[in-house]
């Protein structure tokens, strides 16, 4: 409190002394500082994780080498890494929209699964009567719609009754995951198989692939949507209203924004993007949804969105890093015996160091100032 006031109060001094030069720290460190505060935690996390690997008898350099070789340097691995990015990028876009508006949509996994199930239910049926492009578009629309409808209840409750969306979206998350199981097992089950799984979209009818690789255009869609979401948030009136809502909800009401509608729309759009992620993974790589399938990408991406400080460009970088780590970690678990979920430890370390560096940076700035 006191620090803020200290900065706020001396406005009058400024008024009398217009010649006060801008603080040196901000001038000299301007281009370098964000790079440094992002890179430093990464380096620190790699070092500490290396020490942990070393302490359990694994050569850290060998581990990192396997990860990089498998996920980045081998053509097939790189394709896998890029393919893995698509749903993560879309979920990142989903979270950026809602987090920037100060709305914590934590139900993205349920919304993602509903989108996937909707696409898996519609796709194989529609493909028999409609052309590929129409089927694929319809699948994505269905995925977005299903997820958006699912989010209406928490959205309306938040907008009109003030019920905390963190709790309702989390509850709807569990319900959504269960509902997807029920839908796969009871409604959309493929009668020709014994395992509970939806009917499958034939491989040739899925999202087109890029330049003869195994990478499908899902990642292009995802990049476009993420960058689009970023631009909407930063350049448009609608995005500004959302950010005002996030920064000061009372100011949003005072300025005459239709806060209730804004809240419902934001949560619905966030959910629709999560649903799109599910539809893209089904129409792009999986072709069907198995019961009990839940990769929990949503919970994985939340820390990454925070690491990226809700900036779309930074999300792309972190998602690439994470996709690379998880693809590489799967390979390392086979060759080195390190559990494949070791990459979560790395993400965790990254978060801790990011918070630390941020804290030190703020302190330094105050002292320099």
């Amino acid at each position, binding site marked *: 409190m006191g620090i803020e006031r200290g900065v706020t109060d001396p406005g009058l001094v400024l008024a009398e002394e217009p010649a006060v030069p801008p603080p040196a720290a901000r001038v000299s460190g301007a281009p370098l500082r964000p790079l440094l505060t992002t890179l430093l935690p990464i380096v620190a996390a790699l070092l500490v994780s290396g020490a942990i690997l070393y302490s359990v008898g694994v050569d850290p350099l060998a581990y990192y080498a396997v990860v990089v070789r498998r996920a980045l340097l081998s053509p097939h691995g790189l394709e896998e890494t890029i393919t893995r990015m698509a749903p993560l990028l879309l979920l990142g876009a989903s979270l950026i929209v809602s987090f920037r508006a100060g709305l914590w949509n934590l139900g993205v996994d349920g919304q993602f699964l509903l989108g996937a199930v909707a696409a898996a239910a519609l796709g194989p049926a529609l493909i028999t009567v409609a052309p590929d492009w129409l089927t694929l578009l319809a699948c994505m629309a269905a995925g977005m719609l299903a997820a958006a409808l699912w989010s209406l209840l928490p959205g309306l409750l938040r907008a009109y009754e003030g019920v905390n969306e963190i709790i309702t979206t989390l509850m709807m998350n569990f319900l959504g995951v269960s509902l997807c199981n029920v839908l796969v097992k009871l409604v959309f089950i493929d009668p020709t198989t014994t395992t509970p799984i939806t009917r499958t979209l034939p491989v040739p009818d899925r999202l087109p692939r890029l330049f003869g690789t195994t990478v499908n255009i899902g990642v292009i869609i995802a990049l476009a949507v993420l960058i689009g979401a970023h631009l909407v948030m930063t350049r448009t009136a609608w995005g500004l209203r959302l950010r005002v809502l996030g920064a000061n909800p*009372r100011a949003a009401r005072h300025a005459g924004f239709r806060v209730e509608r804004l809240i419902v729309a934001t949560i619905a759009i966030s959910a629709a993007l999560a649903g799109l992620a599910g539809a893209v993974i089904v129409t792009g790589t999986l072709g069907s949804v198995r019961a009990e399938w839940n990769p929990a990408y949503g919970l994985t991406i939340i820390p990454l969105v925070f690491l990226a400080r809700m900036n779309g460009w930074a999300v792309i970088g972190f998602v690439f890093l994470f996709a690379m780590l998880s693809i590489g970690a799967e390979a390392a678990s086979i060759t080195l015996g390190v559990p494949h979920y070791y990459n979560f430890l790395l993400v965790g370390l990254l978060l801790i160091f990011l918070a630390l560096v941020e804290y030190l940076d703020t302190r330094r700035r105050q002292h320099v100032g």
Partner: protein
Amino acid sequence: MSLAAAAPTDRGHDGATGGVPLVAFRAVTKRFPGVVANDHVSFVLHPGEVHVLLGENGAGKSTLIGMLAGMQTPDDGVIEVAGEAKQIASPRHSLDLGIGTVFQHGMLVPGLSVAENLLLGGAWWRRPRRAALRSRFRETCAAFGIAIDPDVPAGSLSLGEQQQVEIIRALWRGGRVVVLDEPTSMLTPQGIEELGGLMRRMAAQGIGVVFITHKLHEALEYGDRITVLRLGRVVGEIPPEALRQLSRAAATERVIGMMFGHAALHEATASRPTRSLDGTPVLQVQGIATGPGAPRPALHDISFAVRAGEIFGIAGIDGNGQKQLAEVLAGQLPGSGSVLLDGRSLAGLDVGARHRAGLRYVTDDRLGEGTVGSFPVSINLLLKQVGRPPYWRGGLAQGGAITAQAKRLVRAFDVRTPSIETPVGRLSGGNIQKVVLARELEGGARAVIYNKPTYGLDVRNIEAARARIRAAAAQGVATILISTELDEVLEMADRIGVMVGGRMVGIVPAGAEARGAVGRLMTGSPHGH
């Protein structure tokens, strides 16, 4: 600036009181990005003295306290505690040095009892000794003439009582210095008197009290020594022996002179010329009421009309429905009844549409709802036109138009800001109010509702805001001035409506009789009209 030159800034001796001062600032400087908050500030606190720090907003009082409380460290200069130079590194260190700080906003946990709140600072490994605490609490209370039950929840105490508990807590660990940061701002007149008594009793027991305020009469009433801060510098000090010799009026004049320069004294009393106002009303309000869901008190059947150029004052004790009325008119709170602007009904129009139609609302909550503190000045200037051309076209922000308009408004309304990209929350209260005024008065204002427009501002900014309101009215804006300061309403308004319990209990014309009439209406006397 002749005053500043004559003022003692770094004094070699510490006045006639003698002895080692409890705390001394020696040429302390503290800079923040772009500003010097404290510039070679020197002041001395002696045992048994109430030392008043006076200054307008932005004078550097809060920074000074921040350094005393260990929240900030000086860039230059020395802070001495009991004669020794100390680096006060943290709030805990400050307490360990015997300096207790009571901040403007309460720091007690409302759900815990008074005793439990006092136990909070203790070492975690020790069992709290409640019985011993109670008896010591009673002793301390008795010593300072306070009557508070240690077992009631802190939240159930009045603001004044909570403050007393915080003062006891500040002294709890044997502190000899109490710093009170604008302690009177939340208190009733009676509470202020009690606090004054408490300060005097503390001083009598040899405790040094730093009393921060911007109210002059409090400074003169309870202070032994007065130091005036202005623009981060000490511009003057009145030591106890001098203060005792001065008459109240002479002391007042001297302090005001230090605070604002002598010119401020006389421009404040100029009263508006009486003008003939005729013509049709611009704003007609008929039968406004609010439903059961609205904040208390509900509004009942409020009707009045305001002509072009007229200032219609609304007086009343705070919380009698003034804010609800303003919000209903602005479209922010649903209500029944009719509002006509230039004869056109505003029924069904939302905040944005009313703003565009020319009905503007200057809220009393500048930071809470009037602005988004972390957003740049430029966006805050256009907050009520988001999405509108020429600043947004097809939903896309037009950076050039936004920048040009922001620069124009900053210049026209004399907003003192490093740049239009500066987060508005970094500006001083007076400049934030200028941003809000610029937004509401800009572009086709027909009727403007000002809710407590000078609340929390210093004298210079109060005058600037009032001048702005008068100028807008002179250009034909129908003006509604809501204020809890009767003098402000009497000075500025052509007619005065009085609100009590959500009703407009009467409307009186300005003039010699107005003060009495308004007073009778406010206290519910039947002879109001």
